[in-house]
């Protein structure tokens, strides 16, 4: 058993009368990919927002490497090593793609890891973009984000996370809006990150692609974790079947935003 990086224990959050997240606990180990699935509105994104400090939980604790990070501001949580992508992407549209990575490379965390120096940020940004599938010798990395197709912007988000050299990456519906070819080319990038020892949480609606790369899945419904285990286990569980009953078309339900 490798060491536990992130522990979420008994986390709950209400918005008015709605229970968004209800008493959720799980653990994340280095070098593992955990998938989180569930119908829309089942509290997946709220959970991510709680872990990354954008929402303060009513109850429960989030512990990262023995440090209690519950309710800490988002920049602090990123600083200790948890990076995330957003479901609703909002890149800096007027900037060239590679400049979108500059804030991440400019962060105190990266400077600390580089021993107080920033290095040549533009060059590093180009390297990372190549890593996430931007064609280095083309004009693509220089194009302003406004002119890039959606699939590239999604991978730009991933690049933004990688630039932070995190220990945990949380991908909030990274695959949604990507073409099949794009997903196929993105999967090896994620697997490579896992092999480097980074722990990854993936929230996904595209189950087929998700099950290719993960063997540990959490299922959410109405804010509660209703099942946990390998893809086969959870898909055969009665509770999961119930949750998904009548929502066979889940793959078409992907939020385009």
């Amino acid at each position: 058993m490798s060491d536990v990086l992130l522990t979420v224990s008994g986390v709950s959050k209400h918005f008015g009368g709605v229970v968004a997240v209800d008493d959720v606990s799980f653990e994340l180990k280095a070098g593992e990919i955990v998938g989180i699935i569930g119908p829309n509105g089942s509290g997946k994104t709220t959970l991510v927002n709680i872990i990354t400090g954008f929402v303060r939980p009513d109850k429960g604790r989030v512990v990262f490497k023995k440090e209690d990070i519950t309710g800490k501001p988002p920049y602090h949580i990123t600083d200790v090593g948890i990076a995330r992508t957003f479901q609703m992407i909002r890149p800096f549209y007027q900037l060239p793609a590679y400049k979108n990575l500059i804030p991440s490379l400019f962060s105190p965390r990266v400077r600390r890891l580089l021993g107080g120096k920033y290095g040549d940020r533009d060059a590093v940004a180009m390297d990372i973009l190549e890593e996430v599938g931007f064609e280095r010798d083309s004009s693509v990395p220089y194009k302003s984000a406004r002119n890039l197709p959606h699939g590239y912007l999604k991978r730009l988000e991933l690049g933004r996370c990688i630039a932070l050299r995190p220990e945990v990456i949380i991908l909030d519906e990274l695959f949604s809006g990507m073409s099949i070819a794009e997903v196929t080319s993105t999967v090896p990038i994620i697997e490579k990150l896992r092999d480097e020892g980074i722990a990854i949480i993936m929230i996904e609606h595209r189950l087929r692609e998700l099950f290719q790369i993960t063997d540990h899945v959490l299922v959410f419904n109405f804010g509660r974790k209703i099942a946990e285990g390998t893809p086969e286990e959870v898909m055969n569980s009665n509770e999961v079947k119930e949750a998904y009953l009548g929502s066979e078309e889940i793959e078409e339900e992907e939020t385009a935003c």
Partner: protein
Amino acid sequence: MFAAILIYGFINSSILALVAMGFNLTFGISGVANFAYGAIYIFAGFLVWIFLNTLGVNYFFSIILSFLSSFLLGYLMYRFVILRVRGLPLSEVMATFGLGLAIMELFRYLDFVGVKYSLPVFIDGSVSIGGHFIDYQRLLIAVIAVVMTVAFYFFTHYTKLGLAFRAIAQDDETALTLGIDPDRIGAFSLALGSSLAALAAIIILPLGTISVENGYEVLINALAVCIVGGLGSTVGVIVASVLVGYSQTLTANYIEPHWMILVSLAAIAVVLVVKPSGIFGKQKELEERV
């Protein structure tokens, strides 16, 4: 002494509530922070004076005309200025601020300065309450403030137009799909806010002289009440006016009248530090967390 503070504090609170109501209404419905609010207040006051003294219209019709002009001014402001920068709060702020400044300083330039710029009270005389003489005008202010707040509550909760207002305030895109035109409601909200400013001016200004500084003071008081109570909240305005009103009266009584406006300013500062959305505020998006 105690009774006097109680009475005058209540009147002061009524004044604040009246002054803040229009600003709050506009913000609550269309999200426009009308920084020209103080300008409209003195605009209405001076207009009554002009009708009354320069054009010789009788007092009642002067008031009506001024009231309608303010309504029109608010509407035109929306139509020709705010509509073009709608949805850009910072541009809205700058545009209304610039406009308000232009209006107020125009009056200063036209030499509307001096004691002669005052309006007659509605009913002369005073009444004794518990040994303290309260003039009818002040009494009227208190009554109108109470009536207005009650009427307002019913308007926004029980009439079709009021409900449409609240729908817009909640989500203008959804309201659009329900057949409510946000631009028409927005224009109306500004016009209504402006005419409330005019109403406040018409009944409050007879207490003293009309001066350009009034405009700035009114804007600050309106901001203070709305920030303390929570922008866009009707209940907040009432509670905040009482809070700020009584603290102002106490300050004026025990320290110095000079410090009264300082109370408003300090109240803004304190609330913004302690609870930025105000006592009854629901403006969640103003706080940093997503």
